[in-house]
């Protein structure tokens, strides 16, 4: 139901992002999607990768602070207003969205990654709404 996201703490310093990507490359971990905001001092690089455990291990060994977080991958219909309708359902149930970014799964449809306050409840609601969730296997 959930997918494992790899979250890495990086200082906002020249070359740091490249170092993370290099570690992943060296350990043969493929990046499926990522998100990074333009904060001033430091940032959290959030990644969906084909092998999250291997990615975490490699990063930690190279001195990075890395962890795995459960997130939801939601498949969307490509039409105006669909995402809004989906979020309306979630928000009505008192669930807060912490962050969200786009996910490319290589199919025609779009997908998003979301992290919400009550992940279990959010997943249940989405299932009730007959929304299809992205599985770990699909991005592996």
């Amino acid at each position, binding site marked *: 139901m959930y997918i494992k996201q790899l979250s890495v703490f990086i200082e906002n310093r020249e070359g740091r992002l490249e170092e993370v990507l290099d570690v992943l490359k060296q350990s043969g971990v493929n990046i499926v999607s990522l998100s990074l905001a333009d904060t001033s001092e430091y940032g959290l690089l959030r990644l969906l990768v084909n092998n999250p455990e291997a990615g975490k291990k490699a990063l930690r060994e190279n001195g990075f*602070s890395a962890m795995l977080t459960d997130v939801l991958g939601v498949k969307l219909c490509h039409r105006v207003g669909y995402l809004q309708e989906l979020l309306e359902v979630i928000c009505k149930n008192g669930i807060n969205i912490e962050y969200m970014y786009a996910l490319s799964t290589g199919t025609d449809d779009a997908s998003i990654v979301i992290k919400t306050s009550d992940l279990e409840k959010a997943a249940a609601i989405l299932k009730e709404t007959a929304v299809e969730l992205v599985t770990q296997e699909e991005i592996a």
Partner: protein
Amino acid sequence: MIWSKEETMSRAEIEAIQLTRLKDTVKQVWDKVPAYRKKMEDAGVKPEDIQTLKDLAKMPFVTKQDLRDNYPFGLFAVDKEELVRIHASSGTTGKPTVVGYTKRDLEMWTECVSRIAAMGGATKKDVAQICFGYGMFTGALGLHFGLENIGATLVPSSTGNSEKQIMYMKDFGTTLLVATPSYALRLAEVALSMGIDPKKDLNVKIGLVGSELLTEAMREEMHKLWGDDMLVTSNYGMSELMGPGVSGECEHMCGMHINEDYFIPEIIDPKTGEVLPPGEKGELVVTCIYKEGLPLIRYRTKDVTRLIYEPCKCGRTTCRMENLDGRTDDMLKIRGVNVFPSQIEEVILSVDEIGPHYEIILTRKDHADRMEIRVELLKETDSYKELEEIEKKIKSKLRIVLGLDAKISLESPNTLQRFEGKAKRVKDLREGI
């Protein structure tokens, strides 16, 4: 274990020894050290003016500057051929300070260190690994001969090559570690990275740490990494006086016992130079009363402490000096506020989400001092909110302790510099200071 009977003498016995030795030392420097005689003449004191221990206050102070002015051997009280060893301080600011030992000086040194090592729990059964840098620095060889005299098995591994250090600890069954507190932390970190947990996989039960301040927070951090049952004691000394062995903590950890038959401690007001009554806090001044090579009288240590004369629970009757808050040399003046780096260290060690390593960077912009503290994030997180909260927590704790605001920079683990000797954690980039 109490090593020598001199550690349990009555006050009267201690003072009788001190007076005899003080008189001898004053006469010795008057007769043999022209630079010293001149200092005494300038102060209007002659050897016969010293009749009681109180008369010590008539003698002029000696400072590091005197040692520099008389570089290298100008204050030595023996002919060069009587010297059997020379050590020198690092001399980061100018010429090093040079110290010399006669054969008897080395015997005294060994005796002093044997006492403080025994106070810290060392016995002949210990395997003692000395992770102080061997060389001109007095720390390593001082501890070396003291521990050897006790009968411990020495592993003189010096500093560096931390992985090999851990291998020795494991394979030789090291039970006693000599290091600076910051290098002891580093070694634990290296062990963990090798898959060795110092608490379970190593048998280090005694830590004799020195050459750097041991704050209570640092002692707690040592316990966290090396195990709660490790007896971590600090000891005190400086090359000008001899090296390590001037004083040390016993198992009760209530101040460091001074080897009073060899050193007379005084506390002075650093501004006026006046001697303060027992129990008051001020600058520690130490007189060597049994040394031949370099018998400094009233040496200003720049360390701030107070003296405790009540006998200790351990049975020793020697005067204790309270563990140090910091050296007057290390004190920073930030926006007019006096700050000891150790105060910042205590705050950093009290926050679980960050590691024990830190760097303080001081800059000045628009005539205002700015303090940045770089720390390593240990807590793994996926939340900006949590990162902000960690920053806020450190900031507010610092504000309570120092009354100052600082910029906190969170860094990835293992990015800050590690130290094998004395840690240099402050970068003062302010101009004109």
